[in-house]
């Protein structure tokens, strides 16, 4: 497959920077192939480390070594560090060891094969899957046509200060940022979901002024809940991916809250609301999400923000009264005003 949706910024002209991206994608690809087996094996062996702790050990090893990586074969050095960490900290069970051996074999084969443009292909395939998934599961609910994969531009952020992915509505492109941080490894494991989030939260909404709370919480929960309810993926695989995704989100949030990039308050303003409304009325939920996504550039997003903030802490009975059936954000606020609860 020709990786025609992925391009690299100039810094990847340096072989050592390109090697960092290669190592990340090689390791992520090797883990992805055995992820379900790994988590099941850790469960079967019981005790510690559990599956997420094994992944965390690799995330640690990779992020700490990222700066020193100069060539793709360093993937095997990072691997040795990872195994060293596991051995020092824990006694691995037999089944877990067998799966880790298989991942090692897989990684060695991929690394020695030195497939040209492996990293670009890895991201391109994830991008195609992301666009397909959004087109198939999200857009029909919003009355929007299917989309084609957007161009992905990969950048290197040595200080890990920007988002690990971004999107420009103006140019219609997605940015993928390689960073020496733990969440980069998790992002590689669930690359298509990271890209799906960029489509849903940043490329699809027509209004550029939607707040971070709406994009990073409401729309993120929309995506997450749709995956939870995905009937077309084996239950165990789905649970594993959701676990990895949840650890990724938590790792990412903590990183950006520590760096002061993200304000923790956006979560308390909106968190859970999408899930609650979705569970109480699927039709209201999709109409609300449709109103958010389809808000045009010249419309004011403030009523949406105000209404969601107002709805977030309401008890079920009032939440239902204001959202079922859904009549729009302005009528919702007007009804709340008449009920005397618009000051929240």
């Amino acid at each position, binding site marked *: 497959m020709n990786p025609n949706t992925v391009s690299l910024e100039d810094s990847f002209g340096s072989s050592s920077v390109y090697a960092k991206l290669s190592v990340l994608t090689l390791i992520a690809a090797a883990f992805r192939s055995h992820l379900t087996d790994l988590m099941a094996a850790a469960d*079967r062996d*019981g005790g510690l480390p559990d599956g997420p702790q094994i992944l965390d050990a690799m995330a640690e090893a990779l992020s700490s070594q990222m700066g020193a990586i100069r060539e793709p074969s360093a993937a095997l050095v990072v691997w040795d560090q990872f195994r060293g960490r596991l051995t020092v900290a824990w006694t691995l069970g037999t089944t877990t060891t067998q799966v880790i051996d298989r991942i090692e074999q897989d990684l060695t084969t991929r690394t020695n094969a030195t497939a040209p443009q492996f990293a670009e292909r890895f991201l391109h395939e994830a991008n195609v899957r992301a666009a397909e998934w959004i087109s198939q599961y999200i857009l029909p609910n919003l009355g929007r046509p299917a989309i084609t994969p957007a161009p992905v531009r990969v950048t290197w952020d040595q200080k890990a200060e920007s988002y690990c992915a971004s999107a420009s509505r103006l140019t219609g492109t997605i940015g993928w940022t390689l960073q020496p941080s733990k969440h980069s490894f998790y992002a590689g494991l669930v690359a298509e979901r990271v890209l799906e989030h960029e489509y849903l939260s940043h490329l699809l909404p027509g209004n550029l002024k939607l707040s971070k709370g709406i994009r990073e919480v409401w729309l993120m929960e929309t995506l997450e809940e749709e995956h939870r309810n995905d009937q077309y993926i084996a239950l165990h695989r789905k649970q594993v991916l959701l676990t990895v995704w949840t650890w990724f989100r938590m790792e990412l949030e903590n990183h950006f809250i520590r760096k002061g990039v993200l304000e923790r*308050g956006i979560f308390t303003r909106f968190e*859970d609301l999408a899930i*609650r409304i979705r569970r109480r009325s699927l039709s209201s939920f999709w109409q609300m999400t449709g109103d958010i996504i389809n808000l045009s550039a010249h419309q004011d997003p403030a009523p949406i923000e105000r209404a969601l903030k107002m709805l977030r802490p*309401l*008890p079920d009975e009032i939440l239902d009264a204001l959202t079922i059936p859904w009549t729009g954000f302005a009528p919702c606020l007007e009804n709340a005003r008449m009920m005397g*609860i618009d000051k929240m």
Partner: protein
Amino acid sequence: MQAVERKFGQQFLLARAATRFRRFTINELHRATEVPENTIYSFVARLHRRGDLETEELSSVHPGRPRKRYLLTESGLDYLLRRNALVISLAQGEQVSGTAPIVPTTPAIITPQVQSTPNVATWYSSAAAGAGQPSPARPVAREQDDESDEGLVAAY
């Protein structure tokens, strides 16, 4: 008083993590929230008593008690979502500016204020009174001598 604040925040963090994971072990909740394990055991036991958790025993090749994984049931999820909404409503009742709400890693003292403008906190109060249940202020006070936050949720 500080101990009360800490407990309140810990319950919120645990509920938040549980609604995200839906399937979790004690160890995972501990790593995600950094809440002490004893508090997590109480949290899990309370949900279990309510019938809000299903338990999966993980086989173990290691000696000792087998590890357990808990699955949040649909009713458990509803319960925790409602409870977190209540926490936020009480926290917002406390805020004057309405900006930067609190995720209580170092939580605020959450006591609903009497306000001239009707708000959801007062609605909770009247709804609870109508149902013959304690007002929302009471369970917060209960936390001073009781770890349980069951009463807090009774307002629903």
